[in-house]
């Protein structure tokens, strides 16, 4: 059967081109791979190759013709034994590319984002049950140890996690219990071991990748986002990646700009993984266990300054918190204060001071930044009509910006004051003690913001 050679699209954006030169003439025989013409696209001059063998029966478009539409027949190739009488040229050029793009554009326009806020979980706060007073550090360690006992596929990998017992002693005792096979010291190569962890997760293991701090995870962020978070989607649901990336996040103390930054907003921006930020010991245990059990990548943003803080922590090895559910730490009626990780403590302190001044603040511990429990925030704002968002990170495009947009979209009519943001200052973290203090959000900033929202001075 005679086949038509169509004007090809030779770049992602080409719709027409110039047939600059024929490299064959009618009657020539060609085999697959022979160059038959030169075509000028919107980007370059390209060579067009024959796909099948045969004889050039007819050249339909003259050399030098400009503006030849993609998919217009430009030549006819005859098979062995055929002659020119077999040539029947299609009357109308086919234009599948153009028409399909229109359909695509239309279909995108009609597809709507699932309505937000979507209730993530309709579950009650689990009971603490029997508790013991331990540090956040110990709660994190217990969570990992319990899950490692339960599931042979879980292992811990990172810098100084094994022999050194953890740079911040979070993995203390784990090497002794689980051996070097499952508690693995890595070289100082974040991108490499984060990627290795992703590969191990594709191989059905459940890695816990510890970053000495999340500042160093910047070296690995391509693997965290492009490899871990996106592959389930890009594989149409086939691949999946059950992996935890954890470590201290946010400002420590007097370590300067490269070691003091909150990455909450960075990771929360990305679809395809979850992001949690525990504050209390119970948060740390319950969220870490949930993260390890989750079939998706989960980022656990811990805080170094909280590692030594003691809380009542459930002793049960089935204390697992649902990811995506915030906790109301303190009920109130006048103003909602949202916070995560270390800022929850500061928010509670601020609420205490506000109470002394006659303002009843409701404090929400977000616990999870993605998915964000917008339902709990909105319900609270519908009651208090005011909101102050607290975070250590920079103000621009921060978690507070998202919360404020969510409130505007979902509770605009309930607001009695603009949403206020208490954040870190928009500068790299300074070293000097006085400047560092000025750069970080403090209890008094929250108190001031809450009072301003209540129109009190």
């Amino acid at each position, binding site marked *: 059967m005679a086949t038509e050679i169509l004007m090809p699209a*030779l770049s992602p954006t080409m719709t027409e081109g110039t047939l600059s030169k024929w490299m064959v003439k009618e009657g020539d025989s060609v085999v697959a791979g022979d160059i038959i013409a030169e075509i000028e696209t919107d980007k370059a001059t390209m060579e067009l190759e024959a*796909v099948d063998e045969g004889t050039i029966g007819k050249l339909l478009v003259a050399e030098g013709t400009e503006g030849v539409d993609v*998919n217009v027949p430009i030549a006819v190739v005859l098979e062995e034994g055929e002659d020119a009488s077999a040539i029947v040229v299609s009357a109308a050029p086919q234009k599948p590319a153009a028409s399909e793009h229109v359909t695509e554009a239309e279909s995108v326009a009609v597809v709507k984002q699932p309505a937000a806020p979507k209730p993530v979980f309709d579950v009650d706060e689990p009971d603490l049950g029997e508790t013991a007073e331990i540090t956040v550090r110990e709660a994190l360690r217990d969570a990992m140890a319990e899950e490692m006992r339960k599931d042979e596929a879980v292992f811990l990998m990172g810098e100084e996690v094994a022999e050194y017992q953890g740079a911040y002693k979070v993995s203390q005792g784990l090497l002794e219990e689980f051996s070097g096979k499952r508690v693995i010291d890595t070289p100082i190569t974040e991108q490499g071991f984060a990627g290795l962890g992703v*590969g191990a997760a594709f191989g059905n293991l459940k890695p816990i990748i510890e970053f000495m701090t999340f500042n160093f995870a910047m070296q690995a962020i391509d693997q965290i986002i492009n490899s871990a978070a996106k592959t389930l989607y890009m594989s149409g*649901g086939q691949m999946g990646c059950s992996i935890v990336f954890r470590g201290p996040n946010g400002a420590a103390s007097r370590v300067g700009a490269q070691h003091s930054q909150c990455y909450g907003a960075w990771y929360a921006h990305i679809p395809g993984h979850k992001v949690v930020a525990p504050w209390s010991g119970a948060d740390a245990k319950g969220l870490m266990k949930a993260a390890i059990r989750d079939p998706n990548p989960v980022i656990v943003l811990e805080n170094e300054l909280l590692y030594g803080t003691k809380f009542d922590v459930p002793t049960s090895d089935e204390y697992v918190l649902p990811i995506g559910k915030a906790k109301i730490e303190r009920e109130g009626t006048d103003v909602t204060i949202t916070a995560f990780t270390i800022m929850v403590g500061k928010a509670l302190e601020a609420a205490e001071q506000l109470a002394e001044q006659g303002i009843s603040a409701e404090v929400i511990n977000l616990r999870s930044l993605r998915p964000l429990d917008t339902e709990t925030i909105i319900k609270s704002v519908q009651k208090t009509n005011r909101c102050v968002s607290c975070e250590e990170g920079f103000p621009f495009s921060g978690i507070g910006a998202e919360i404020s947009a969510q409130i505007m979209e979902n509770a605009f009519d309930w607001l009695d004051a603009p949403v206020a943001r208490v954040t870190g200052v928009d500068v790299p973290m300074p070293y000097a003690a006085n400047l560092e203090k000025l750069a970080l959000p403090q209890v008094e900033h929250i108190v001031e913001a809450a009072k301003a929202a209540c129109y009190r001075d």
Partner: protein
Amino acid sequence: MIRRFEERAGQLYGMGLIGGFCHLYIGQEAVVVGLQGNVIDADTLITTYRDHGHMLASGMDPKGVMAELTGRIDGYSRGKGGSMHMFSREKGFFGGHGIVGASVPIGTGLAFSHKYNEDGGVNFCYFGDGATNQGQVYEAFNMAALWKLPVIYVIENNKYGMGTSIERASASIDLYRRGEAYGIPGKVVDGMDVAAVYKAGQEAVEYVRGGNGPIILEMKTYRYRGHSMSDPAKYRSKEELAKMRGEHDPIDRLRFKLLEDKALDDEAFKEMDKAIKARVTESAEFAQASPEPDPSELFTDVLRDVA
């Protein structure tokens, strides 16, 4: 099969049925075909974005691959991955990765899981000469050597990282020596000779499966087409391409060898070519007939449900 499939993919791209970037494997076929002869079920394979050949050689269905290229629901990634992002757990094919160099630590992680699970598997980790200058490749080499992970690093050296020749991009062009600092042995192989590739693969697999840690195979190969469909490949001479194609074509070389050995005759080749063409045509038709994903697919496969 790979050659005919890629020619057809190029044609469908020309018709606007395949979008975006499309990197063809034409010319490099002997590399993956030769190595796949040494693979057992437990093994895994990972590569970068010039991946159609690896998928077909892994035994993936050309219909599913072509339907992914056209962005249809019957594609391996339900139309959501495209040319550079396809996977088949069942066939041990772990992608299809679009970021140069990133698949090397991931392949090393698959090797880690082989060792952890003691399943006897080896990871075949393919990447190009362009990726060998990425820092994370050496982070992976170091850990693979340190922990004696079962991984074969296959460097497909086709001489050009997009449009920049290896001489202009690399201070040292002996890529098989790139593991020396970590004690990883390396070998140069004529990647245009399928028998030589097979033999090198056999030795490498024996070494790696024996618990000796990683090995590097540098495959000297050549891509006939540009880097992607929109690359006119002006950075190399027509003579260079014609010489590779005329004198070193891996398929022609194998055909002449088999004819010489009287293992197959011309007639048998014609029959084979016809059968392959029919399969490719069938896959192209399938890929055009398969519907585009339903708009509701936009929101699926972002996260897995928690059990």
